[in-house]
């Protein structure tokens, strides 16, 4: 069951099955405006699946999700036209999200990419690509940001810059749910630790 358009993010007794594997079950948590949550756990435990489930890209096996009206997902894929300069590629999303070119410029600045705005995305390095994905997320100005390893490939200065943007989003009353192995410089109100189910249930 999925219910969109509330103020909060609320998951009740959520279970997720991928293929024929149960990733997690009976997961319940809630975030209210201004709160941030951190999902941790070993690789393959279902962190990304949890984010995709909340984003509406997967259907839960069971349980209920209530999400705010607008969500932004930042995963490992660009969703930007590789042949276009960053500013022009972001314009596509700014048009879809009803934003202006000034918002684009602001989002690029928030990601610390002002000097790369005119460079085609195919020339970007790993860290720069990650920052471009973040710029796309900042641009959306959605209530809830779902961040999948947002600090991957970022240098220390960029992680600090990311922290500032995340904090500004929380101060505006936004919500963040992040899955990250790298420590993010914001205070998390909620910590979800996912553990592999077969380890819990292995016969003695």
């Amino acid at each position, binding site marked *: 069951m999925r219910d969109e358009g509330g103020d909060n993010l609320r998951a009740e007794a959520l279970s997720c099955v991928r293929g024929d594997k149960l990733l997690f079950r009976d997961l319940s948590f809630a975030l209210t405006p201004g709160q941030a949550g951190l999902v941790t756990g070993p690789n393959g435990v279902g962190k990304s699946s949890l984010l995709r489930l909340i984003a509406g890209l997967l259907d839960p096996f069971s349980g209920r999700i209530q999400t705010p009206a607008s969500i932004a997902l930042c*995963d490992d*894929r660009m*969703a930007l036209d590789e042949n276009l300069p960053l500013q022009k590629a972001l314009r*596509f999303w700014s048009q879809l999200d009803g934003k202006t070119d000034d918002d684009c410029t602001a989002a690029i600045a928030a990601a610390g990419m002002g000097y790369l705005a005119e460079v085609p995305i195919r020339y970007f390095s790993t860290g720069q690509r990650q920052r471009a994905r973040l710029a796309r997320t900042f641009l959306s100005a959605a209530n809830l940001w779902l961040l999948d390893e947002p600090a991957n490939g970022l240098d220390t200065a960029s992680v600090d810059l990311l922290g500032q943007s995340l904090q500004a989003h929380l101060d505006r009353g936004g919500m963040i749910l992040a899955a990250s192995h790298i420590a993010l410089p914001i205070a998390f109100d909620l910590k979800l630790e996912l553990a592999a189910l077969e380890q819990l249930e292995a016969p003695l």
Partner: protein
Amino acid sequence: MIGALKTLIWRDVRQSYSSGGTWLPVIFYLSAATLFPFAVGPDRDLLLQTGGGILWIAALLATLLPLDRLIQPDLDNGLYDQLIVRGITDELIAFARLISHWLAFGPPLLFAAFLASGLMGLEGPPLVTLLASLAIATPALAGLAVMIAALTAGLRGAGALGGLLLVPLAIPLLIFGAGSLADQSGSALLFLSAVSLLLVAITPFAAGAALKAVRE
């Protein structure tokens, strides 16, 4: 919704025309049409009789060329996921893709058919019928291409499979389309229109369902 549709269509159309992907089917079409007179000889009557059918088959083959660029790159890029997160449905994405693909595929193909018909010596009413039948069929060919590209997205050997899928699905178009050249009553064109409308109408739902399935 309309604004989102326009943005999506404009992005795809601009991308196809600027990447040169639009002109590949046109060049292919013209080369296929050029080969045919070399193969059967310059007999004018023979070319007049068979030329229309050959131009129709070339149109079907040209449909296959852009298949791997229609859905797969945007799927890999995460574009569709981002659209779904924004509440844009799979059906609307497929509908936008149908329109943008037709805009990049239909008019250039008609232009190529017009040029190629000169090589077959087609002129006057047969030429008009050929162009009319192709004009009616190009939305359906675009729809078939979008459906097949969505169905085979993520599969290995998607290109070869796409060809196998297109052939049987395109037979009704070929029968009524190429048939319209010899048909004086005009009913073949009406049947062609009916088949074309049907294919266009099911494309958003079939391709949308395929996009949904590939996400699971």
